């Protein structure tokens, strides 16, 4: 909601990025979420990442579905166009937008209800198509906006606020994304800005479908003891398999990491993501192995975070579709409409 105008003056001492912009320039309207909601931290992390990446905000498009999480695009990047579509159908809208103009950056924000239930089919197929976008699920295990029903990502052992038991297993969206072939898959925690911001930066620099499952607690409906999506639980059970630092492409690498535990992967824009192996058994380039590892650890009640899978070799949608370089929406009559002679030839062929 925008009823409270937020003063937007530039404090002289605010740090500027390469575009001469401050963090304020990447903010949005005032949040109307509950005080303390994890989603607000995710918005802040997106702001931070875009600021640090020097992204021109108007070249970003914000896509979402319906839910508290899906509302958040109003609360960051107010200079970007946004599209708050219908429940669970953001992936298709983002796919269409992407086809029309692949030169923008797409940030899709969704909730676990929005993605794992009503939108599960669209999510899976956006992954499969390798739509070039960052897809963030703000995962709180519950339906915030409709007041606290279990979502499909709620763990079987996780109980409701009033002690309700959950009979069903959770859908692990990150594991799903890996199995479906997403080329960048991470999990993080809204409470862990140091991990989240570099992941968002790397994801935004990746070409292809980048998925981040952010555990983002719902303070109102799912932050109690017994919930596995509470701040406390995640803090206590987080296990980071791969640390990821984002290195802009101009920066040279300084060798301050231990030999062997660090891998540098060059992203499509020549920036790099520096992976730090925090779990010796984990290989973020091995799809089947990563999956097995995650499933095994999660079965033990751990929340596996970090960069889970990265494949810089996969092509993204536009390449798959063999489209021309120019955005389709930039083509005019001259490029698109054949002339009357071409039409007449068709007429002749139909006689």
């Amino acid at each position, binding site marked *: 909601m925008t009823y409270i105008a937020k003063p937007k003056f530039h404090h002289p001492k605010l740090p500027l990025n390469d575009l001469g912009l401050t963090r304020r320039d990447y903010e949005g309207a005032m949040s109307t979420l509950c005080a303390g909601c994890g989603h607000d931290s995710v918005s802040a992390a997106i702001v931070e990442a875009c600021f640090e990446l020097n992204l021109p905000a108007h070249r970003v498009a914000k896509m979402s579905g319906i839910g508290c999480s899906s509302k958040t695009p109003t609360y960051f990047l107010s200079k970007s166009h946004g599209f708050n579509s219908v429940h669970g159908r953001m992936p298709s809208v983002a*796919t269409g937008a992407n086809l029309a103009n692949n030169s923008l950056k797409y940030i899709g924000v969704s909730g676990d209800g929005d993605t794992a239930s009503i939108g599960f089919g669209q999510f899976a197929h956006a992954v499969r198509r390798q739509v070039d976008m960052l897809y963030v699920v703000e995962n709180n295990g519950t339906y915030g906006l409709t007041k606290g029903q279990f979502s499909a990502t709620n763990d079987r052992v996780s109980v409701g606020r009033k002690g309700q038991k959950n009979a069903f297993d959770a859908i692990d969206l990150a594991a799903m994304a890996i199995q479906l072939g997403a080329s960048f898959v991470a999990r993080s925690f809204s409470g862990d800005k140091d991990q989240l911001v570099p992941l968002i930066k790397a994801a935004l620099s990746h070409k292809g479908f980048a998925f981040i499952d952010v555990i983002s607690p719902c303070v109102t409906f799912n932050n109690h003891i017994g919930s596995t999506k509470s701040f406390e639980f995640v803090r206590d059970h987080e296990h980071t398999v791969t640390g990821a630092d984002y290195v802009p492409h101009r920066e040279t690498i300084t060798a301050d990491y231990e030999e062997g535990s660090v891998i540098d992967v060059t992203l499509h824009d020549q920036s790099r993501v520096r992976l730090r192996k925090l779990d010796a058994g984990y290989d973020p380039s091995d799809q089947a192995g990563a999956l097995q590892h995650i499933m095994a650890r999660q079965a033990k009640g751990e929340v596996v975070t970090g960069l889970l899978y990265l494949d810089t070799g996969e092509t993204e949608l536009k390449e798959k579709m063999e489209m021309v370089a120019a955005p389709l929406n930039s083509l005019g009559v001259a490029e698109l409409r054949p002339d009357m002679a071409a039409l007449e030839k068709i007429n002749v062929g139909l006689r």
Partner: protein
Amino acid sequence: MRVNDFVIKFANVNGSGSASANALFAKAIFRMGVPVAPKNIFPSNIQGLPTWFEVRVNDKGYLGRREGIDMMVAMNPQSWDRDVAEVAPGGYLLYDSTFIREIERDDIKTIGVPLTKLCNERFTIPRERQLFKNVAYVGALTALLDMDFEVVKGMLSEQFRGKDKLIAPNVDALELGRNYALKYFDCPLDIQVVTSDAVGDRILVEGNDAAGLGCVFAGATVAAWYPITPSTSVAEAFEKYCHQLRIEPETGKKKFAIVQAEDELAAIGMAIGANWNGARAFTATSGPGISLMSEFLGLAYFAELPVLLFNIQRGGPSTGMPTRTQQSDIISCAYASHGDTKHVLLFPSDPTECFDFAVRGFDLAERLQTPVIVMSDLDLGMNEWTTKPFKIDETMGFDRGKVLNAEQLDEIERFGRYLDVDGDGIPYRTYPGTHPEKGAFFTRGTSHDEYAGYTEDGTVNARVMLRLSHKFNTAKTVVPAPEFGQKTQGATMGLIHFGTTAVSVPEAMGMLADSQIHLDTMRLRAFPFSQEVEDFILSHDKVFVVEQNRDGQMRSLLVNECGLDPARLVPILNFDGSPITARTIANMILEHLGQAVEDRSADGVAAE
């Protein structure tokens, strides 16, 4: 003697290769300059079930479906009994006399050609024996109907250009049938085709092919679709023509993107996303897809996003009759989605108009910033029609509607996405990425104010809703106007029709004229209805509304939107899944007027 005026029907088994032989037959007559109307009547299955191909040949240009089969080519033992029964008294039955058949009727003439035997003797490969039977009966027909053999042979050569070694056996098969007929029958029969110039510059094309081509010429770059009969060929045609016309020569890359979506919800979601982002995008579907798209249609209506949607209607409700035709999605499209919504509909009546409405549909959708649904149907979409050639006006660009670029944004003080600046109810929009500082807004299906800000103030929302009504009124002035057909001095009765019914109307009017009944006719081409539509109705005491559905849906729409007394509007309805005939129309009108009615073969399926 029936020269250039008859109906011939082929009864085959689907998947047996008859389709191309039958199409060849129809096209050959068209090439001889005689208008034809071929219709495929196919099952919802892939192989082994009865399928029919009906060709009306008529040089007066009456090309609507007509009852009474003058000649039946009965190749399918499964459907033999009803095929024989369907031949009009005095008509012909051509059959494969390799097999002995009891023919109980003595009022028809039989022509037995031992097709299987002939082909088995001539060809050795089983598949060839099977396929060439079809070509052989076409050969027999060339003799029986006195067709120009060179035309037919020439077409075979064209068809197999590149696979030249197929030409000879095909011609062989053709001659096999032809020679048998010449030898054993008194050729030609009293049904004949004579070379004519009645076709003029017209072309023979399917509506869906035309629609797909129209999208290319309209500058559509994104198509997202999900397979469903009978709409699939719209996307396929778009793809075919894009490959011909839209490949960047230097790179071989595509100036288009076609996505087979995972379902219809995704298909329209993609089309909406692309349109939001400034590309012309469309989708095509049929009934079940319309139902699934309705949530998104409501979003597009309310958030004011252009999108073009082809609804190739088939028999409803539910999965219904997927391979039969109807016009029964009028209400569900006009008011698609919950809440107060109304959508712009276009009603093409031939392939030329499918092409034109694709072009015009994008202009309208972008001008009005709202979904536009082209209401075609299976009969139009999947059958070849003799129709006017395609034309475009090269002097005209695309009407992209009210879109502000960076310079224009610089000039205005404060951009309001949903402000009615011009008083026509149509606001201005911007594409994402246009301007670093100005013009960004949030597109949403929730209630919003004139600046696209979320609001829960019901008064503001009501204001937006009233502006949408106003915009819909503006639409009345820009959508294609109705077309007036027959206009008789002093006629007190009128007839309204739309879509594929049009092809049967002139003939029906002729039949009525024989009974001294004269009606003024009007063909609707769009919803919302312009003032002329209301005027037409008000200037007649009684108006018949002809539709191919059970509930008189267009009549409801007319009553509802024009505020007219329904008593003025008499429903004429046909919903058995086959295209409405002139005889049906004429008889129902005669019945309504209490006059004697000529015998019709369609038995009781048309109601009220």
